[in-house]
């Protein structure tokens, strides 16, 4: 997932003009400030998982790994989002969010945009309407829509029926969460469309457990680069941190609440010598299958084959495959 920021474009200026008409006290933030996704603020945790390959988690050398190994992935999926706080009305933040997602298919070793489902780009303006009643009429919201910005109310009650406070940080956090959800929805729709066709294995940046259709598809392979949640503890943690290049962990089952259960394992792509312990470490998610060890070996070989070419100059190149970098560059260009 790509998080980026850029200066105002023509459509965001149009949105700001509309806001200025309705909110005389609106204060613009020059150039806008980018907002980081919420995941960065969640606390890191260790969570145990059910081992499905053997009785304890151990390091497994992926068999048959060589530079000549072909990759079975036929496409890559990633999403991107841009979140900007463009102004405030007496502290009430106004947030613009752009989300996008694309599948890039590999044809003759080159990546092109999937023709079946065009890349998606959606823009929205995130407004706490409860605190901005001047904007809460249907005509104003329609005017935003006409300007290319769907209005999203970030001040609705949560599932417990509680409304957010007027604290600006809370409202920004709400907006960011809404943008995250919007991006995930786009990614999920594309992933579902791909899995429905079942053309070839899809390399998905991130987990696959959000939707049952994707989580159960043999076409979907999720590769998770961030490890704020580690599905190991105790000795197992030491095993994972000690994985050598080309080694994977035993397969375990991840069953998050309100999500589908998937099989998962850790894979070390590059030697961590001289780097942090999670250098080159990814966690792979696939659907449940009969022979998880064989499946893990096969998918691991594919992922290792995707380490070339390097995803440099991206800072996450130790974990990122070039196909995902290509998706991000593509999304950066179109959104």
């Amino acid at each position, binding site marked *: 997932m790509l998080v980026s920021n850029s200066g105002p474009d023509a459509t965001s200026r149009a949105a700001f003009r509309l806001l200025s008409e309705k909110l005389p006290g609106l204060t613009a933030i020059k150039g806008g400030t980018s907002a980081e996704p919420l995941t960065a603020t969640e606390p890191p945790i260790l969570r145990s998982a059910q081992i499905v390959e053997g009785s304890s988690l151990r390091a497994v050398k992926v068999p048959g790994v060589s*530079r000549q190994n072909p*990759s079975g992935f036929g496409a890559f999926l990633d999403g991107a989002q841009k979140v900007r706080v463009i102004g405030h009305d007496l502290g009430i933040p106004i947030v613009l969010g752009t989300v996008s997602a694309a599948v890039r298919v*590999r044809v003759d070793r*080159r990546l092109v945009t999937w023709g079946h489902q065009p890349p998606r780009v959606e823009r929205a303006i995130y407004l706490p309407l409860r605190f901005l009643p001047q904007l809460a009429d249907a005509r104003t919201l329609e005017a935003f829509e006409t300007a290319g910005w769907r209005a999203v109310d970030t001040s609705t009650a949560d599932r417990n029926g509680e409304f957010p406070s007027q604290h600006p940080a809370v409202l920004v956090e709400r907006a960011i969460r809404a943008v995250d959800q919007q991006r995930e929805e786009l990614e999920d729709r594309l992933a579902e469309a791909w899995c429905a066709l079942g053309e070839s294995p899809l390399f998905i940046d991130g987990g696959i457990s959000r939707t049952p259709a994707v989580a159960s598809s043999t076409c979907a392979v999720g590769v998770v680069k961030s490890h704020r949640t580690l599905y190991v503890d105790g000795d197992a943690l030491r095993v994972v941190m000690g994985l050598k290049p080309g080694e994977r962990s035993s397969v375990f089952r991840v069953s998050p609440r309100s999500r589908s259960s998937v099989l998962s394992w850790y894979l070390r792509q590059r030697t961590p010598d001289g780097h942090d312990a999670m250098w080159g470490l990814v966690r792979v998610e696939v659907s449940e299958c009969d022979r998880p060890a064989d499946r893990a070996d096969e998918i691991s070989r594919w992922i290792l084959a*995707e380490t*070339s*070419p390097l995803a*440099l100059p991206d800072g996450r190149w130790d974990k990122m495959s070039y196909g995902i970098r290509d998706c991000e560059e593509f999304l950066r260009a179109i959104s």
Partner: protein
Amino acid sequence: MSEALGRVVATERKPNTPHEFHFWTAIDSPVGIGTIVRVDGAKPIDGQIPHIYGIVVEGFSYTDLQSPMHDVLGHDGLPTMAGYAATERAEIRLYTAAVLRQIPEEPLQPVPMGQVFLAEEADVQVALRMDGYLKEGANTGIPVGVYRAGGTDAVIYLDADFLLGPEAAHLNITGVSGLATKTSAVEWLLSSLFTHFPADKGSIAAVCFNVKGPDLCYLDKPGKVEEGDKALYEKLRVEPHPFDNVQYFAPYTAKGISLNTFRNNEALLDNVVPLTWGLREVLQFAEVLLNKDDVDAKADALIDFITQNVVDKEFSDPILSRKHKVQSFADLEGWFRDVLQGMEKKDGESWRTHHVATIRKVRNRLSNISTRCAGLVTDSGAVSDLPFGSFEDRTVYVVDVANLEEDAQDLIFARIVSKLREHLERRDLGVKHLVVFVDELNKYAPGDGADTYVRKMLLDIAERGRYLGLVLFSAQQFRSQVHRRVVGNSGTALFGRMDADELSTPGYAVLSPATRTKLATLEKGQLMIRHPHFTQPIFVRFPRPSVMQGREGAERYPQASEVSLDAAILRALRPLDPSITLPWVQEITALYTEEEIIRARNATQLARPENVKAYFAAQFRKILTAQPVARPMAATIKSAPENDPYGF
């Protein structure tokens, strides 16, 4: 309409301007250096969607790689591993194009963003402003070749008004030797010119000086035309045939027996005319052969005196032993001898203000000419020349000077061009437009060195020829070393494959590095063209000339070796009368000197009479043949009667 093959892009670092723009294409697009493209603007200007035509002058390719080191790291330093990468890096083909034309032409604005299309034939005509002279009523287009890119085959036309005058004129060709560029291009262009030059613009002919090798010696013989070239000929609407009318001119060898040309094979002599000049023709151009040290003011004065008062006039003087009528070098020598003897008798140091030393020097130098230019200059004064005054339309006149000494080459060039100029000024050459082709301009019109007569003449043609209809087609290997006024006055310039050293000279700095690279690697049959209507150089292909190439001609028609006088006479006369045989020649010439026989041959060749045998025989002085004298019959002695008792 074809599909878009690229998109215009511009950044702050690489902005588009009114004369240059950038665009990217797919990796496999057929765009290359020299490709002509069309940009369709997205927004109308003054109610008109702008169309911009450009030619690709530079290309860039790069990937998203930030440092080459990343690629090394990515493949563990092993290049062979690179081939196994599952994905190839994102790669860009970015091109820079120079604007050929913008429509509308005003207001002239930077090239807008828009889609880029491969130019089709109609686009090429507009882009190169050929539409102006290809439209009905103008029709002055002369096909020079085919522009070929990505499936587009477009004929490129030169504007006859800018190739042969009066708007601009002259053509210059540059290219390395040995790649059949310069001569082939001229042969092809003359074919096209003779085919397409509009009839309403008058007649046209060409005089080609063959200064080296046999390349121009077989213009009337068919050459091999390959299938690809046939298609080009068809596209260019030129028949792949040799020239219909070609006339060759060549002087004799020093001995004066056979013609000094690659084309002296008996099978080819039917249209080879000897080129011989006498005293009168040469004296007018004595300056060509005499260097500055020879011809000081005094010598010049004496030469003028001889030209005006002696040559072709009855000249008498008290010191002379007799009247002289000088018509040949032999006569002139006799005149000099008489003058000097007369001065010796009078013991005088000067005659008619000319010092004896000056007279001796001029005698020496002038007499020497017939030796230095033997074969061309005749002692006898016999003249065989180009048909000045009766030049024919669509005819090539080739003057073969390849085997001659430099002096003789210079003399031939200077006199022929002067005569052509004189006749064109008087409008009585026989044709309205004349192309003069001269190769090796590096030698004849160098940028540095002495200011020779020949260089002055070339400069004169280049600067003033177009007003007369005298057009210079010139060629050389190193354009940078030719006098800049000669090449500068050439409205049209063709470039074949170029030498890298030549391309590094300042004259080529206006070309992009990619265009220079393309010039250095051009194939046979490819040219880069500059023409007044084209705002940028264009690359074209032209067909191999449909005439026999020099090497093939030399193999098929080997040059005849020096033959006996009788055989040479037979060769010279047989094209005029095929019934002439060697025994007949031997019988007629048996009693005469070599000089008389050559003179008779020259006179017959010049006259080209109907009855060749009679004319040739009539050239000899009458010699009474020896007849056996009848011995007078001795009176018979009467025999004594048998019964004569005193008889014995």
